[in-house]
């Protein structure tokens, strides 16, 4: 599994913990899945998700900065891929052959 898939996989695992497997069994979560329309995520559940991510990647992600200019409607309309990309960008470590950031 690539790093990319790892982050998406972790977000899916966290969503299952928060929302419950029963509901998500019928939903395939991809980068294009939206939190609001596709997952019907509640705002309090999004708080729980960001808390889990914050704990998992402590110190490396700052969701307050990510959502600083968004209101709640914009946040909930976000795609899973947007969040995953943000985490990837903040957690990518320099690998041989890759440019140091």
């Amino acid at each position, binding site marked *: 599994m690539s790093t990319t898939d790892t982050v998406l996989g972790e977000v899916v695992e966290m969503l299952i913990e928060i929302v419950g497997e029963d509901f998500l069994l*019928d939903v395939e979560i991809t980068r294009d899945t939206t939190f609001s329309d596709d997952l*019907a995520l*509640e705002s*309090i559940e999004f*708080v729980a998700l960001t*808390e889990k991510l914050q704990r998992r990647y402590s110190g490396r992600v700052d969701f*307050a900065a990510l959502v600083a200019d968004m*209101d*709640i409607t914009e*946040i909930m309309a976000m795609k899973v891929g947007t969040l995953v990309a943000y985490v990837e960008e903040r957690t990518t470590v320099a690998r041989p052959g890759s440019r140091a950031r």
Partner: protein
Amino acid sequence: MADVHANGIRFNAQILEPQEHTADAPTVVFVHGLISDNLSSFYYTLAGPAVVNGARVILYDLRGHGRSHRPETGYTADDGVNDLCALLDALGVDEPVHLVANSYGGIVAARMAVTEPDRVAGLTLIEASCAGTSAAAWIEDMANTLSVTALRLEYDGARNQYDKAGQRRMARLIAHADGLLNRTTLVDDVASERPLRPAELAAIRCPVLGVYGERSELVGAAAELARHVPDCTVEILPGLAHTVLREATEILRDILLTWLAEQRTRARERRVPAAPLTKEGP
């Protein structure tokens, strides 16, 4: 941090720490409103800006709300004060905190300023009526509305109508409201709530900020605060009704941050003794 055990139940709480700690940084505790409300209404509005401005922020779901445990009893304002004090104890917070409360949360927060004055450094009430006839009418109105909603949920079978994945959010909202209204003492506890007396408002020692919508049914509470609370600031927002937090977030944010900064300055001035007016004699 998510789960905090206090006063015998599990609370969902979020602690947000500022990037840089300063010795006199305020601790701000947000207290949300009833039933469908939870900590997320503050999390996405005022909490972030408060942290960016140097405050340590505590958000929590009141008992029975959001992702906190839902016991059958204990929904009076006094219970709410006991819960919050126990939560602060569990978090090791012993300094006085600034309470920022919306709607019904204001009844809990104002009660705490009265009964636990040493734990409250400041009180911000957003669209909350705590005292006098305006509070009595509001409490009665809330209790009536909640009773009617409870009956509807119980007898209309509304909670079964949305039990489909596509309507998950509505189904969960209905199930949550049904559980809180029909499986706990919350409605009775709200109905039996008593408004604060003018003498109790007059005895509040901490600074109080009240923010109300010009068209809100609760705007009379602003005059009640101004009349009785010794250290009181009131802001009336033109054109708005009860939903100030949602509809005037940026204005509210500016009012709150300015007020908190003023309180910090005042606290610093109190700590620094005034310079002597005259030189000491030979």
